[in-house]
C-alpha cells in the first residue's frame, strides 16, 4: 500500500509541478473567473432578488460558485489536460514504461485533480471570508469536500476522456452534462423552484450534493445531511475511478 502510494505520488508530483509553473494562468481561470461571476451576479442580481432560501442572495450564490469552481477545475484537468497527456504528448506512455501501472497513473491523476480543486477552494474561501461570507470555522469543512469533488468530477472526466478521439468530443460532455448540471443543482437558484420531476432528478446529480453540503458550512451550521451528501459524492467517485482505470487500460494497452 505504501509502495502504491509512492507511485501515485510520483504522478501527482509531476502534475503539481507543471501546475506551479503555469500557476498565473491557472489562477486566472480557477480563481478570478469564479470570483468575477460571484461579485457581478451577487451584487448585480442580488439587489433585485433579495433573500433566497432564507439568506442574502450573495451568500446563497457563494456556495454555488465555490462548488462549481471545484467541479470545473477537476473537469478541465480530467478532459483537456489529461487528454493532452494521454494522446498528444504521450506523457502517460512514458510513465507506463517506468514501473507504474495504469491504475497508478489514474490514481495519481485523480488525487492531483482533488488537490487542484482544493487549491481553488482555498483561494475563493479566503476571499469569501474577506467579504464576511464565510465567517464560521465550519467553512473549513469545505476543503475536504472540494478534494472529494475534485476526485469525483475528475474521475468522471477521465471516463469521458477514455472515449475521446479528439478535443471536440468534450464539447458534448460539457454541453450535455456539465452545463445542465450547473443549471439544475441549486447553484444560481434553489432547486425547490423546479417542477417536481426535474427536482427529483436533480437530486441524483453529484453537483447538487456538493452544493447542498457546502451551503450550510458557509452559513456556519453543521447539519446531518452533510454525511449523506458526502456519501453521494463518494458513490460517484469510487465507481468512476474503477471505470476510468478499466477503460483506459483497454485503450492504452491493446
Amino acid at each position: 500500500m505504501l509502495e502504491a502510494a509512492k507511485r501515485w505520488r510520483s504522478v501527482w508530483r509531476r502534475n503539481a509541478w507543471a501546475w506551479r509553473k503555469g500557476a498565473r494562468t491557472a489562477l486566472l481561470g480557477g480563481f478570478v473567473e469564479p470570483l468575477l461571476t460571484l461579485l457581478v451576479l451577487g451584487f448585480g442580481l442580488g439587489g433585485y432578488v433579495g433573500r433566497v432560501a432564507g439568506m442574502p442572495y450573495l451568500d446563497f450564490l457563494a456556495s454555488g460558485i465555490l462548488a462549481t469552481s471545484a467541479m470545473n477545475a477537476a473537469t478541465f484537468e480530467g478532459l483537456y489536460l489529461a487528454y493532452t497527456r494521454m494522446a498528444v504528448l504521450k506523457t502517460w506512455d512514458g510513465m507506463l514504461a517506468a514501473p507504474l501501472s495504469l491504475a497508478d497513473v489514474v490514481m495519481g491523476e485523480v488525487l492531483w485533480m482533488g488537490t487542484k480543486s482544493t487549491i481553488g477552494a482555498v483561494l475563493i474561501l479566503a476571499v469569501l471570508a474577506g467579504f464576511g461570507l464565510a465567517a464560521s470555522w465550519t467553512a473549513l469543512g469545505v476543503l475536504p469536500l472540494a478534494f472529494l469533488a475534485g476526485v469525483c468530477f475528475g474521475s468522471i472526466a477521465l471516463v469521458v476522456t477514455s472515449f475521446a478521439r479528439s478535443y471536440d468530443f468534450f464539447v458534448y460532455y460539457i454541453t450535455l452534462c456539465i452545463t445542465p448540471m450547473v443549471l439544475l443543482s441549486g447553484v444560481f437558484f434553489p432547486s425547490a423552484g423546479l417542477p417536481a420531476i426535474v427536482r427529483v432528478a436533480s437530486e441524483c446529480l453529484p453537483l447538487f450534493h456538493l452544493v447542498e453540503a457546502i451551503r450550510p458550512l458557509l452559513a456556519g451550521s453543521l447539519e446531518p445531511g452533510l454525511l449523506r451528501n458526502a456519501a453521494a459524492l463518494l458513490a460517484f467517485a469510487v465507481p468512476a475511478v474503477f471505470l476510468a482505470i478499466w477503460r483506459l487500460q483497454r485503450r492504452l494497452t491493446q
Partner: protein
Amino acid sequence: MRASFNPLRFLSPLFVTVSTAPAVAARHLSKSFEGKRVVDGLSFGVRQGECLGILGPNGAGKTTTLRMLVGATPPGSGELSVLGFRIPEQARAMRARIGVVPQQDNLDIDFTVIENLRIYGGYFGLTEAALKARIPRLLELAVLTDKANARIGQLSGGMKRRLSIARALINQPELLVLDEPTTGLDPQVRHNIWSMLRQLQNDGLTIVLTTHYMEEAERLCGRIILMDRGRILADSSPQALIRESIEPHVLEVHGANAEAWCRSLPAERDERCERIGESIFHYGGDLESLVRSLDAWEGVHYVYRRANLEDVFLKLTGRDLRDA
C-alpha cells in the same frame, strides 16, 4: 596505455549487471490486431551484453514485438520472459530494471532537461540523493550539460533523442530497448546517437533496438533478426548473414541502355540476376568481367560493391527493405 581521462570508466557505474538469466527469452510469441497476425510465432533469445537489432520494413511488427517485450501490451500467445521475469505477469518489476526509448519522443515539454530527468526518476521511486548523483553523468553522456536548464522546445531533434536515451538510463537498467532510435534524424545526428549507443555497449549494457536502416543494424548490432510480416526471416550476426545468405558482390546497373546491355550478355552465366524497378542486380563471387563489359556501353550507370543486409532482405523477400 591510456594515460588521459577515460569517459567509459567514468560512466560505467551507470549500469549494474546482476542477474544471470538471459536478457530476453521469447517462444512462439504472437499477437493479432483485429484478426490480423502482426507478430507471428517469434522465438528468439538475447544474451546479457548482446546488442540485438531487429531489422525490418515498416509494418513488419517491430514495434509490436518491443511493446510486448517491455510489458506495454500483453502477448496474444506464446511465452516471454525478460531478465528472468515472466511477462506480462511480472512486467512492473521487470520495468524497474530496463530502460525504454520509444519510437516517438515523449519527453515532458512542460519541463526543462534536468527536470525531465528528475521527474522520470520519480516514477522509479528514486530518491533526490540518487538523482543528484546520477543526473550529471547522464547529462554528460548525452552531451546536454550545457542545456540542463533548457526547455524541451528549445532542443533540436538529435538533442531530444539523446535526452530520451539518457532518461531511459535513469534507473541504471540492465537492458535498454530502443524503437527506431534514429529514424527521421539527419545523417550527422544519427552518427551522434550511434556513438552514444556504442559507448553504452562498451560498458556492457544489453541492447535491443529496431531499425529499418540496414547501415544502423550493421554498425551497431552484433546480432540481427531480419523480420518481415511478423516473422523471423533470419537470425545471425550481420557478417554471417551476408556471408551465408548472399553472394559476396553486387553489380547494380541502371540507365537507358541497361536492358540492352543485359541482353547482350551470354545466356549461360553463373551470376544470379534480379530486376527491381529500373535497376538490374547481378550477384556473384567475382563480377570483374561483367564490370569490364560495361566499359563499351554508353547510357548505363553502375555501382559495383560488396553485398549488404539490404541485398539479403531483397533476396529473402523479393522486396526492397526501404520501401517494402
